[in-house]
Every structure is written in C-alpha cells, then in structure tokens.
C-alpha cells in the first residue's frame, strides 16, 4: 500500500517565491486564476513596469477571473486566453522574438508555472531565470506513467486517469521537462482495491 510522501524527501518538488521587480528591457508576465493578484502586487511594487509589460492572463479553472482588474493596470500589452494551450503559441512567439534582458514572471497554479518554465527552458533560458509565485488552487498537472496522458487540474488523490482510466496515486515526483507530477497505478497488485479519493490539492 502506498502512502503520501512528504515534500522534504522529494528533491524534484518545485518551490515557489514571490514576484519582485527586477530591472530588464521588457517584462513578460503569465498568470492564471488567483495568480492575477500576484501581478497586481508586482505592479503596485513597481508601477514603472507597465510601459514595458506584456501580460497573458488565463482565468482559473475554478472560475476566478481577474481580467477586468488586470486590464486597468496599464500594461503595454494585455491578452486574455481561455487556456494555456490556447495561449502557448503567443507565449512561444514572444519568447522566440525576445532578447536577453527580458524578465519572465509566472504566477498562479503549479500547472501554469510549470508550463511557462518548460517553454522558457525550450527557448534557451536557464530553468531558474523566471520568477514564480504560487497562488490559488493547488490543483496539479499529472502525467500517467502508464499511458503518458496528462490530466489537468487534479485535486484528489487517487484519481482516475482521464486517458486510460487507471486509478492513479499522485506522487510529489515532478518533471520539469513535462511540467507535470507523476501518477502511478495504485491498485496494480490488487485490482479494484482503491482507497477513497481525498481532496489533497484544493
């Protein structure tokens, strides 16, 4: 029987900080859901950021939508997108066209932060070049290690893989390349013996 592993023993478990202004040529900010509040704090801290800021905002899967407030911050560019998948092309294009000196910020759910980090690394930035702040839902992006399908916004442990239907235990083992936690079949030895799902990542 498996049990939840504590964060202390899993080195790959990401840690997050608080967004703070750093001098740079442009400021590219990607946020979802409550991550919008972290963007508001960043602008309150350094209002001069606005003229060179580009914000991409994705309303939360839980319904949180701060786009009206973020639009009034006066960023040079503001774009709202329905999902990370929908915003990804823009994000990749901005990173692909940018020059060194660009400051990158990601705020909101772990799934969003991880995907911004993955795309930043693909653009050639060191993995610690972006500033992160976790806000709002603790929902996880999880890859099923059996079928490799990714399930977004996982809040319970175990959960059912949205691709292959296996019952998956959510580990703290994290992949920067996939921007996802690892989900492992919990009833492989005793099929059907699945502990009740607990809401661990509200």
């Amino acid at each position, binding site marked *: 029987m498996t049990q939840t592993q504590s964060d202390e023993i899993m080195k790959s478990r990401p840690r997050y900080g608080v967004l703070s202004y*750093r*001098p*740079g*040529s442009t400021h590219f900010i990607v946020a979802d859901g409550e991550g919008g509040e972290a963007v508001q704090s960043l602008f309150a801290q350094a209002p001069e950021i606005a003229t060179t800021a580009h914000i991409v905002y994705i309303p939360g899967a839980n319904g949180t939508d701060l786009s009206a407030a973020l639009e009034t911050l006066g960023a040079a560019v503001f774009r709202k997108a329905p999902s990370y998948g929908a915003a990804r092309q823009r994000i990749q294009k901005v*990173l*692909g066209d*940018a*020059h*060194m*000196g*660009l*400051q990158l910020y990601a705020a909101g759910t772990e799934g969003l932060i991880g995907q911004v980090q993955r795309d930043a*690394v693909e*653009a*050639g*930035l*060191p*993995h*610690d*070049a972006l500033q992160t702040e976790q806000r709002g839902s603790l929902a996880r992006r999880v890859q099923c290690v059996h079928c490799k399908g990714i399930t977004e916004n996982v809040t319970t442990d175990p959960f059912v893989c949205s691709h292959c239907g296996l019952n998956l235990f959510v580990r703290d083992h994290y992949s920067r390349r996939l921007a996802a936690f690892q989900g492992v079949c919990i009833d492989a030895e005793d099929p059907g013996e699945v502990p009740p799902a607990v809401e661990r990542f509200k």
Partner: protein
Amino acid sequence: MSGASKIPAIVTEVVEVNSLIKRFRFVREDGGPMPGFSGGSHTVVEMEDDGRRRLNAYSLMSDPADRSGYEISVRRDDGGRGGSMFMHARVKPGMRMQISQPVNLFGLDLRAKKHLMIAGGIGITPFIAQMAQLDGLGGRFELHYAARDRELGAYMNELSARYGERVHRYYDTEGQAIDLPTLLKGQPLGTHLYVCGPKGMINWVLSTAQKQGWPKGALHSEEFLAPPVGEAFQVDLALSGVTVNVGATQSMLEAIEAAGIDAPYLCRGGACGQCECKVREAEGELLHYDHWLSDEQKEARSHIMPCVSRFKGSRLVIEL
C-alpha cells in the same frame, strides 16, 4: 594521490606564436589516444624545476574531436613565480612530462540557443576548443576577442579565416573596444555568455550583463589565478600533526606537498573548490585570493583555499 590522475606524455611540438606566447603539443607516451574532453577543459602540467615541483593549469585549445594529442598555449609572465618561464625556457620537443586528465570548470551549456564568447588576451585558449566543438555540432556562436595589439593577438588571423564573420577582433592600441552594452542588448533570448581574460574584464562583463537583467545561470567565466607572492608564514596542519613553513614565492599548497602531505587539489588557481580547508585557529589575517569562498565564509574566517591564499600573523591552524 590528489588531483586528477596523471597521463605520462611526450612534448612533440613547441611553437613560438609571438614574442610572449608559445604553443605546446603533448601526445601519450604509450602512443594511445588521449582521453576525450569538452571545450573549456584544462590540464595541470607538472614541471620538475631543479628539485622544485611546479603544477600549473592550462586550458586545452586543441579540437576536442582530435584524440591524438592535446595543445596548450602559455603566455610568459616575466614577473611571475616561474612556471611559465620554465615552460618557455626549458620545455623542448621530445621531453617527457606528466599532465593531468582533463577537468572542465568552464563547459558550454549546450541547451543555449547561442553562445556569446568574450576573450581578453591569452583568455582566448578555452574558446578555441569550444568553437571547434560547436562548429562540429552546428552550434551558433560569436566571438569577441580583444588584445593589446596585432602582434599579441594570438590566433586572431587563423580564427577569422576559419570562422569568418563570427569572429570580431579588437586592438587596444588602435583604440578599439567592445561596445558591450549594445552587444549584450542585441542578443536573442536563450544566449549564454562566456568570458575569459583578465580580472577587470571579467568583472566588467559580468556586472554589465547583470545590470541588463541577464540571469545568473546564463553567465559563465573562468580566470585561473597564479598564487601571489607574499611574506613567508607558518601553518600547523591539525590532522597530520605537522608544521609547515611557506616560503615567500611558494603557495601554501606547494609547501604542504613539499612536506610530504597529499592534500586535495584540482585547478590550483582558486576556481574549483577542491582544496577548501577548514580553519581551526587564526591569530592574524587570512589573505583570501580565491574565487571560491563566499563573502560570508571569508568574513567568518572559517575556511581557506591553500592553492592561492596566504596568511599574515602569529598562528594558523588548518584541518588537514
């Protein structure tokens, strides 16, 4: 045995590149291939100088794809402690020498989209190997190389002939200087910056990049320090139970080795951290010259790097 393990080698070529720089080629004594290395690696050359053993680190400048031998370039330092003078005056083709396995403290980050290299003077050598490596891989790079004058700009013509537009040359005596702020501003996202040269140049390049918002992980530098000459002092080795006298032109590490103690080391230039030693007692001033210890460690007087650092005072006890 401390340090990287040794390769018995024979000097096959000694070439005078200009009035200050000589190039040396080593092949294995047993005729076999040299160990593979990556651009930016160095080797530690062992010199037997009339009973005095000198160990100096030099960047490998030959093509990493060429396993038949290693090449280094040595700039003669007339005011130095004698290692480069020995290489220039005494090392001849046919001579047998021990060199260490390659160690890389200045490797390329191959995840970069582009490699921007800035070299000052003899600091060009690691880049020659790195450019050969990147050229073979189809990597994107650009070199900005500054030297005092045309005569001292070693390898500039060869590099320009080989890599064309990717090589940019600057001569101090002709009033040419790298326009660093503009150069750094124009780099595409995903560029990594590498600098090797005199201390002042390294500090200038790194601080300019940081001011422009370059992330630390994209900045790479290498400077080997020669151990400075200073006043003689004594050091007690607590674990070995030995007291060692360090001469004015000797480094602490050399004095410890001369006393028969096998102390750990790799680069011998204050860069790698291998020889870090705990300080037990210090009545006097620790003279830190390394790039390794943090400011906090230096302030706490808790550690010292015997390869380059010295001591001035009445009593020093280290854990060795």
